[in-house]
């Protein structure tokens, strides 16, 4: 049916004009091969140019286009209209984040938390380039590979009720990325990250709801990363208590 349509209910909020957000309905052509992002682009190009949202790659790599689609955090470039048709599709900004405008969230908090866990290789002594690269066996790569797939799309934060209730919580992606470097054989920075990870707002805030892992489009399993960090932290504690003479 070439002339069938689908309804989008889009969360609109313009801080210059609106006290409160409202939903606006848009009737657009239904195409079986369209994703929600295509539908938003249609609205912006043809119906209402004031609609604001983030997107870039259209192929699940950049992590910019995360939104709540019918209440579930998803990449809008990976959510097909045909999954919802003929029912209306409700599009909202990612939950648990303040909204800048329409579907655009304020992401400073996440950026700050990301920097806090120092997601880069930390060496006690940087090897000069002349000594060549750091080698890793396939096994050593496999130890952290899964956690390195994170695209910083923040869907896991939108899925996490702990972050919603306690915004100081470091959160799934930041902890998963800290684990990614902690498990990297080239890295020597675990002690530096530990102060943030095992702090009051770190791993122990997590009550293992597990929805971060369900929401993750890259199968990073942040819930698993957090629980493994808890185990490592607990082992640290026992070591300190039972073997105070051991190396710190």
């Amino acid at each position, binding site marked *: 049916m070439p002339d069938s349509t689908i309804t989008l209910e889009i969360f609109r909020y313009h801080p210059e004009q*609106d006290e409160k957000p409202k939903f606006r309905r848009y009737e657009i052509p239904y195409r079986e091969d369209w994703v929600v992002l295509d539908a938003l682009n249609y609205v912006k190009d043809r119906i209402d140019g004031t609609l604001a949202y983030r997107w870039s790659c259209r192929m699940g790599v950049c992590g910019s286009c995360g939104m709540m689609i019918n209440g579930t955090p998803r990449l809008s470039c990976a959510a097909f209209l045909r999954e919802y048709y003929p029912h209306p599709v409700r599009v909202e900004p990612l939950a648990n984040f303040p909204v800048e405008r329409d579907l655009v969230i304020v992401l400073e908090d996440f950026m700050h938390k990301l920097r806090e866990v120092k997601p880069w290789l930390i060496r006690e002594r940087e090897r000069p380039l002349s000594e060549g690269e750091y080698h890793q066996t396939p096994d050593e790569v496999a130890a952290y590979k899964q956690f390195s797939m994170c695209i910083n799309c923040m869907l896991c934060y939108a899925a996490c009720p702990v972050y919603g209730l306690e915004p100081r919580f470091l959160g799934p992606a930041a902890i998963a990325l800290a684990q990614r470097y902690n498990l990297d054989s080239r890295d020597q920075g675990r002690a530096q990250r530990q102060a943030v990870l095992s702090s009051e707002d770190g791993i122990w805030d997590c009550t293992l709801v597990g929805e971060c892992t369900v929401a993750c489009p890259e199968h990073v399993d942040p819930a698993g990363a957090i629980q493994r960090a808890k185990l490592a932290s607990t082992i640290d504690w026992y070591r300190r208590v039972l073997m105070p003479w051991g190396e710190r």
Partner: protein
Amino acid sequence: MTGPYHQPMSPTWWLRNRAYFLFMLRELTSVFIAGYAILLLILLYQLNAGRDAYQSYLRFLAAPGMVAFHVIALAAALFHTVTWFNLTPKVLVVRMGGRHVPASVIAGVNYVAWIVISALVAWIVLRG
């Protein structure tokens, strides 16, 4: 000009999807476990207080309401135990011979230990 809009979190957020609801159910099991622990402590206290006190407490525990509570507490304990055992593979990632030990094995070890310890306790209690 009002600035960023802060999305409120509804008090019924845990009814929004099945996973949140099951999570809350798992958290709620702790209330029944705590209740059971208190009843058990009182049992020890009454045992120490003498035969009459102990017998009258046993009669109190045999009341239908108390039996119902214990059945619910048992169901809660089982639900909590099973959900946590099934989560252990997330926490314990063991590599042996260059391969991950399968999740079913990691969770399975817990179940085996559970059965063995339960059998041991049952043997101690039931041997007379």
